[in-house]
């Protein structure tokens, strides 16, 4: 088939370009490398510029908005070639919610003016976005949010508090869901606005989590201003926009995303052999742990095969699929189980908080284990995903709404 020949040619071209342009100093590194004490800033920024110039920060977005104008299959090929070369695309990571959620939703609902003003800065990795969704009293039940936006002519005035705004303290822009009509039923009086973070009426406070420092913040709006031209979707129809945004979020949490790190982790079974030892036949000495690691590896394989299968069935178009809830829950189980097993196989070495007595890998495992508990809470909790599956996919009756 000549379609796959085309893809192979594209892949070959991608491989060559990566080989010629990816800085050797970044090979095998990943995001978070600034913490390792190496100063890779200049090379990292050079690599970002090269990716952006080619439109590979957001390969599937239209070229006119800074994307690559490529198909899903081509984007996947780029991703695979990056991984194979020990390279990465860090633009999704450094734009916060920009590439994964805000951009795709802008493409779905934005005006030409909004797309032209906001998308290029995301695609080039220069503008970081956060999202003001949850509130202290609106978590899983997001539609009960109470942050108000009042019409003041050419702009809205915002008052209220958002929570879990990831990266709010380092973002330039925020997409927020706000109540624009308190008299309508709760889902009908909501709008989606975009506003710059660098203004007097916006204050952010980082939140310390069980794993220590975190990217999450509380964000306070005290007469913050959002221009009317930055209202995304029609007034009071923000719930539709949010639902689409959350679909993009689930999609980004299915484990089918982009290569953000060039580092190849040690397989858990090899790690286990090192800590636990093997018997005369080469089997892991702890038979119970061996079985549970095997179950986990099978779950992980099944998850990967399911992403591949759903992609193949959709002939490459899986921007937003009904399967996202399934994949998000499956990805969560795989990641959380892996963290628990890794902690367990390390024994007492898997229980350190800080200090010389533990390796970086051991300490990292602990923090990942703790941080990973959020996976089944954010982006619609494990239980909310099950509500979505039972109602939207299986057609069972609604269980969360009154009456």
């Amino acid at each position, binding site marked *: 088939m000549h379609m796959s020949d085309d893809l192979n040619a594209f892949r070959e071209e991608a491989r060559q370009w990566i080989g010629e342009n990816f800085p050797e100093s970044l090979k095998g590194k990943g995001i978070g490398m600034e913490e390792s004490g190496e100063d890779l800033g200049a090379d990292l920024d050079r690599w970002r510029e090269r990716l952006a110039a080619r439109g590979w920060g957001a390969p599937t977005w239209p070229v006119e908005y800074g994307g690559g104008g490529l198909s899903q299959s081509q984007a996947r090929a780029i991703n695979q070639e990056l991984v194979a070369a020990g390279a990465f695309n860090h633009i999704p990571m450094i734009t916060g919610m920009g590439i994964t959620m805000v951009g795709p939703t802008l493409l779905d609902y934005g005006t030409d003016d909004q797309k032209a003003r906001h998308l290029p800065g995301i695609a080039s990795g220069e503008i970081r976005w956060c999202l003001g969704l949850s509130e202290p009293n609106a978590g899983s039940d997001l539609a009960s949010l109470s942050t108000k936006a009042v019409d003041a002519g050419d702009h809205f005035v915002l008052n209220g508090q958002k929570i879990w705004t990831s990266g709010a303290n380092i973002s330039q822009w925020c997409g927020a869901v706000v109540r624009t009509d308190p008299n309508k039923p709760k889902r009908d009086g909501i709008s989606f606005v975009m506003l710059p973070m660098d203004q007097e009426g916006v204050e952010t406070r980082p939140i310390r989590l069980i794993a220590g420092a975190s990217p999450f913040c509380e964000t306070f709006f005290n007469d913050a201003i959002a221009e009317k031209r930055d209202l995304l979707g029609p007034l009071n129809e923000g719930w539709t926009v949010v639902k689409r945004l959350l679909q993009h979020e689930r999609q980004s949490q299915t484990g089918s995303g982009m290569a953000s790190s060039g580092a190849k982790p040690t*397989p858990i079974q090899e790690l286990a052999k090192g800590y636990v030892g093997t018997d005369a036949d080469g089997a892991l000495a702890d038979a119970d742990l*061996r079985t549970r690691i095997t179950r986990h*590896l*099978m779950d992980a394989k*099944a998850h990967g095969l399911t992403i591949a299968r759903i992609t*193949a069935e959709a002939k490459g178009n899986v921007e937003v699929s009904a399967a996202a809830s399934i994949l998000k829950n499956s990805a969560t189980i795989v990641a959380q189980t892996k963290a628990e097993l890794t902690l367990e196989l390390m024994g007492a070495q898997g229980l350190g908080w800080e200090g010389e007595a533990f390796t970086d890998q051991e300490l990292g495992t602990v923090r990942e284990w703790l941080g990973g508990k959020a996976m089944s809470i954010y982006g619609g909790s494990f239980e909310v995903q*099950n509500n979505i*599956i039972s109602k939207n996919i299986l057609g*069972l009756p609604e*269980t969360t709404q009154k009456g």
Partner: protein
Amino acid sequence: MAALTEEQSMLKDQASAWATEQAPVQKFREMRDSGAAEGFTPATWESMVDMGWTGILIPEAYGGSDLGYLTFGVVLEQLGRQLTASPLFASALVGASAVILGGSDGQKQQLLPKVVDGSEILTLAVDDGPRHAPAAIAMKAERTGDGFSLSGTKHFVVEGMTATTLIVAARTGGASGSMDGLSLFLVPGDAPGLSRARLATVDSRGYANVTFDGVSVGADALLGEADQGGVLLDAVLDRARAGLGAEMLGTAAQAFDMTLEYLKTREQFGRVIGSFQALGHRAAGLFTQMELARSCAEAALQAIDADTDDVAQMCSLSKARVGDFLHEMSNQLIQIHGGIGMTDEFDAGFYLKRARVLEALYGNQAFHRDRYARLLGF
């Protein structure tokens, strides 16, 4: 489903329509009630032969259509949904695979056309005891002047009552515990010294313990090379396991559909029981498991068709992962149907009983998890 070819989609529709209309669970019930020793309805089997399903794997030179394992799996999944009983799996998948992979031209010429036209029913006789453990085979094939003499008993031989030729795994060398030193033999079902004892099993199909009391075969009965049968046996077993993965998926998917339908129609406390979140979430969890299981089942069949180097891993993954889902799904089928699920008049029990047999055949979940770990080097 995987992205199917047009041919596979047509076959899927054909198999689904035929199984639902011509060989539904009701037919299986009638067969069980009749106590038929063969464990299937001959007319049902003849229809399958007429539709050409016996030739799906067999090269065109021997009268088949050579469509591959994913295609065979598409059919088995539909048959699994209706619990359609027949020798299709044992003969046209397991037996045919052994002959295709290990047979000489003469053996292929002699057997494969007859598998296609249904005049031969092949089966694999592998285990010496009640648990699947091919490396533990101790049954001996002693070398005689111009051939071999087989003595011992093979347990739980699938279609053991009706098979016309048995593919018997026996030891010509090596020690029990090793796959080295095994050989495979083609033994006619009417060979002197061969006797069958029918097993009445929970799934009401045609299994037998087959005893070989000094059964003599010629050197030409050897399938593949002497002492080298372990590799061939492993390959045949993996194809069997991938086929079972597809059938198990179909059986579990039907159990899921029956359960979902019941959740939407059964009313208690003045509302359909599917409106209770405890049951909605259970259904969501089962559906998630089903999607994951389907990926494993299809990937194993595709790996065989593409002859990748991870066939053994993928087949163990399929057998274990689909087996886990079928196990849970068959239990939930009964649980969610409540009292009606316990009655023989309702079909749920058939699915539960069949599930445990499918799980055990050619290695249960524990067997395949252990094998998967060994293949990954731990």
